[in-house]
């Protein structure tokens, strides 16, 4: 009889100094996942992240729904960043069906996805704050996030899970007087997040807690295949908005933020710098956007692909590069849909970063990887 248990559940004969500790899956500090750590006293000897508790089978579900009805369920993995997770899917379907998107729709998509990136990052930052015992940093981002959620609600009609992007453009045009309200609230938002520097990022207590913990070198970051803010915190200047511009990002002046330290502090600061950059992009897009025009190409209710074809598109989401690979076989449903998400790629770095760290530094390192459990499990 095969008595083998899955790794992590099996009883291991270990040194009496070393203890195996399960963090999660119900631990508030782990999210919907388990981190199996082996500790020697206070120091982590080995770490084995165990995701998969919130696997929903999004990729398989997509094979039974057509290109339009796929939209509401594909944004479920990251409800705070739902425009960005739909972006590669929508770009891919547009290429498969051969649709040209109106110029105004492209700009509105950029604005929506940048607002969404900020909403996600604020949520992430709030949790990072409470992980480090900084309650103010939980309350402030959670409150200021409301400014952008209000804008997205005006734009799309829902506070989260917007279902706003469709192949061929966006669902609805902007409400009247939106540009002024957006500019005013984004300017105020920028002023607010600049205040976070004094209380959080320049705070000596935070720096002492996060600097020089979990250092990921430039070579390791490339070798492990990390993306997004983790890669840029290790000194690699790779931002997809700049390197592979999609929609109208090539017409906007995008500055990618890079830090060379590669520690938890740099990884937590890059998303904050990205939010400041997002405010710049939104202002540019509002200025350059055509003031009127069509926002959606009229499609058949059940669009079909043209025979066997495949497409891979990726965008820069709040958590790194987010790719979508779609195979079509000429039917209204995709033959195969694969989401390649930044969260999962960044999680690979966790065992390398935690080795030799103190257990108390685990939350600071783990959440600085910009990891979202639900997205990684898909």
């Amino acid at each position, binding site marked *: 009889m095969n008595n083998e248990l899955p790794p992590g559940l099996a009883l291991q004969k270990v040194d009496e100094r070393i203890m195996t500790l399960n963090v999660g899956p119900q631990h508030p500090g782990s999210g919907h996942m388990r981190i199996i750590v082996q500790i020697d006293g206070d120091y982590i000897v080995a770490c084995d992240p165990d995701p998969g508790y919130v696997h929903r089978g999004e990729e398989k579900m997509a094979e*039974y*729904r*057509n290109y*339009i*009805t796929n*939209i*509401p*369920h594909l944004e479920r993995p990251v409800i705070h960043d739902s425009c960005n997770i739909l972006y590669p899917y929508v770009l891919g379907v547009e290429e498969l069906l051969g649709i040209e998107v109106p110029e105004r729709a492209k700009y509105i998509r950029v604005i929506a996805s940048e607002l969404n990136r900020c909403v996600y990052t604020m949520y992430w930052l709030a949790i990072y704050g409470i992980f480090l015992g900084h309650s*103010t940093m939980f309350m402030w981002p959670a*409150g200021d996030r*409301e*400014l952008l959620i*209000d804008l997205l*609600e*005006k*734009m*799309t*009609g*829902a506070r989260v*899970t917007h*279902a706003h992007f469709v192949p061929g453009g966006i*669902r*609805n*045009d*902007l*409400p*009247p007087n*939106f540009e002024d309200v957006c500019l*005013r*609230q984004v300017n*105020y938002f920028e002023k607010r997040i600049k*205040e976070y520097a*004094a*209380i*959080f990022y*320049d*705070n*000596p*207590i935070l720096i002492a807690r996060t600097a020089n913990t979990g250092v990921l070198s430039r070579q390791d970051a490339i070798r492990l295949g990390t993306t997004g803010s983790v890669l840029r915190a290790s000194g690699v200047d790779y931002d997809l908005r700049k390197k592979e511009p999609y929609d109208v990002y090539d017409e906007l002046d995008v500055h990618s933020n890079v830090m060379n330290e590669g520690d938890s502090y740099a990884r937590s600061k890059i998303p904050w710098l990205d939010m400041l950059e997002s405010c710049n992009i939104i202002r540019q897009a509002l200025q350059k956007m055509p003031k009127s025009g*069509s*926002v*959606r*190409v*009229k*499609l058949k*209710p059940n669009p079909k692909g043209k025979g066997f074809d495949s497409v891979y598109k990726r965008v820069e989401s709040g958590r790194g590069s987010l790719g979508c690979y779609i195979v079509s076989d000429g039917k209204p449903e995709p033959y195969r849909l694969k989401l390649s998400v930044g969260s999962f790629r960044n999680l690979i770095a966790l065992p390398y970063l935690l080795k030799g760290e103190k257990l108390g530094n685990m939350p600071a390192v783990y959440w600085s990887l910009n990891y979202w459990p639900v997205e990684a499990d898909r």
Partner: protein
Amino acid sequence: MNTATGIIKALNSGIKHLAIKRFTLRYPEEKLKFVGDGYQFDPSTGVGIAGYKGRHMLFHDHCTGCQLCSIACEGVAEAIAMVKVPEEYKHNKKAIMPQIDYGKCVFCGLCVDACPFYALYMTNDYELSSFSKEGLIYTPAQLQVKPFVSQDSEIKITDRGATHG
């Protein structure tokens, strides 16, 4: 930077907020303001009209019982069922109209996009909680009623900060 000055600066930036008006919305007493009367769709142009995606509203004088909304909901939430209505309409020979189960609806609004007869819109009503599962199922007669939604506050930005004024 000196550790002591850094901590004093951090404390100072928090203390400044004691003098600023609260941003929190006191929800049941105050309610948010929306743009427009809810999400609508214009089939002639194929573009929606911005608005909140809340409870649906069904116009009995336009609905032909074509079931397109129900087909659009297949694979999304399967919340729409076509049921018999007692009234007879000239444009609705089968006398069937959508009945929506809000225990399943995800408020994506794809049913509104599917309606070619301007019969199904969404409204600003978002307070749909009920004590029973049956109370969440809205019949065509219930969907016909235009809801009253109080809207009193929106975000106001002044020099001293933002409030829900």
